[in-house]
């Protein structure tokens, strides 16, 4: 967007404004954002939306099929599946988002340090990144969780442990070119310390790839949590997560299919919308493709 010479009123133009205009024209991304917001709101407002408490046992209604009273049916303990799915959304979504925040921060810090300081720091950090990238991620987190028997907070850290490498590489790449730029040189000449140059000058200019990578990583984190809980090493019952609801449903899948369909649909819907959102953000923020 360059300034025009015609006599039209000057339109607002900034990175974020341009990005928003492109983003709002992208139907897939917009739908993703809206669906995700609805899911998050439904999970947050679970006490208002669900008529039953998620762990309330109703022995008169074991294994009820979906009906007007129990929208998603009930499980083998007579717990309302709809309520559990909403409450599970709180756990699964917040673990997905929290672990992405952690992994994106770690990745950005590692990438910034490696790209800015270069030399030994760069080779040590990047070799470490290579090493972690060489271990198959899922087996690694399964083993980690089996060892630790994690609380939700620790689970966030475990999932983050396999998610930071991509961001680190991206941010390092951005820093490598920014480090050589004139404005960084100017900032240094006016007496800025390294930390200030990194935080005030280089970081804001390398943030867009990190944001896109982080958005797409939320989907991975949600899936990782669900796999861990499905295998019984993630969120422990009675606390519901989409993954452990599916673990509970697996053995009775043939006779009570609703128990295994709905939690999976929630995972699919949330990951799908996060991916749509991330894809849209990539197109909207990719300045090179739109310059």
């Amino acid at each position: 967007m360059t300034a025009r010479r015609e006599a039209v009123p000057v339109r607002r133009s900034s990175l974020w404004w341009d990005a928003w205009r492109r983003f709002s024209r992208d139907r897939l991304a917009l739908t993703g954002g809206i669906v995700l917001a609805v899911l998050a709101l439904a999970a947050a407002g679970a006490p208002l939306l669900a008529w039953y408490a998620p762990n309330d046992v109703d022995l008169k209604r074991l294994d009820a099929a979906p009906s007007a009273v129990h929208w998603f049916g009930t499980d083998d303990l007579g717990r309302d599946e709809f309520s559990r799915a909403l409450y599970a959304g709180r756990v699964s979504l917040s673990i997905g988002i929290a672990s992405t925040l952690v992994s994106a921060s770690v990745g950005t810090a590692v990438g910034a340090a490696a790209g800015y300081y270069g030399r030994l720091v760069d080779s040590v950090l990047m070799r470490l990144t290579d090493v972690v990238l060489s271990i198959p991620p899922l087996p690694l987190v399964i083993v980690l969780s089996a060892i630790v028997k994690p609380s939700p907070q620790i689970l966030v850290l475990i999932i983050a442990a396999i998610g930071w490498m991509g961001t680190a590489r991206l941010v390092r790449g951005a820093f490598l070119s920014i480090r050589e730029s004139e404005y960084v040189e100017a900032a240094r000449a006016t007496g800025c310390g390294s930390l200030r140059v990194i935080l005030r000058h280089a970081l804001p200019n390398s943030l867009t790839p990190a944001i896109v990578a982080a958005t797409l990583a939320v989907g991975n984190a949600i899936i990782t949590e669900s796999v861990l809980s499905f295998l019984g090493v993630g969120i422990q019952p009675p606390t519901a997560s989409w993954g452990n609801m599916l673990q509970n449903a697996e053995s009775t899948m043939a006779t009570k299919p609703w128990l295994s369909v709905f939690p999976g649909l929630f995972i699919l819907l949330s990951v799908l919308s996060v991916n749509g959102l991330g894809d849209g953000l990539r197109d909207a923020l990719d300045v090179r493709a739109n310059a």
Partner: protein
Amino acid sequence: MTTFLLRRAMGIVPLLIGVSMILFGLLQAIPGGPLAVYLNNPYITGHDLALLRHQFGLDQPLYVQYVRWFGAYALGHWGVSYSSGQPVATLIAGRVTPTLLLMGTSLALALTFALLAGVYSAVRQYSAVEYALTVFSFLGISMPVFWLGLMLQLVIAVHLGWLPVAGFSAGGWGDVVRHLVLPSMALAMFTAGRWSRFTRSGMLEVLRQDYIRTARAKGLPERRVVFRHALRNGLIPLVTVVALDLAALVSGAVVTETVFAWPGMGNLLIQSITSVDYPTLLAILMLSSFAIVVSNLLADVLYSVLDPRIVYR
């Protein structure tokens, strides 16, 4: 080129040492140590434990244990499984074929889909079929593999009764193939979706190039332009991604094998986690990491072979 290859091949040695250190350290953290499985056994006394600890060399300092283990490992001595008493190498050897069969079939499925769908959606951009393929790819990327497996079991095996729900084989190759269909579809879905997106964008990129316009301008039939001129360059990014995605495929295989009771290495991994079978666990993690490192190296090499514009020193 030769120096480049040698240098890269040498480069995987420190990488593997790093991996082995992380894995070794990780498994040291198991509560109760490698002998945890014996702690709750009433027939094993404290004296027996001490004896075992000495016999396995677990009373040595950590770095001694690591060096011994790594040295033995490099020579192919992978130890004896704590839970079954069999040599780990034998145990794993029995699991390699099913895993390779499963991963190979899904790789072939995913690649076939990715090529057909990717090329088609690049050539017929904005068509209804392209839209449907995009939706399908997004679904594939966003679906947890274990849930897809469950749904395939539910619909195709339980309700329609076309294929067996799980397991490997009751005998004969035909039966193995029938058992193979559902798990390999479940495992292929993610990479199929991902790779078809890569093929599509790679082809779109290439079809925009000047030399394609030249090819069309000199009157070549469209088929020849797409498949002879565009495809060769459009596939370069895909080759790299396929090799790099082996880690994702390995991860997916662990889950798929668990859901479908497929007697492969992923299944063995989960079993050895449950039974705290330390040597088996380490060996599987080491082997799969080794495979990933090698495939990354392969990606590098292939990239340089396929794209002569890239100069390696």
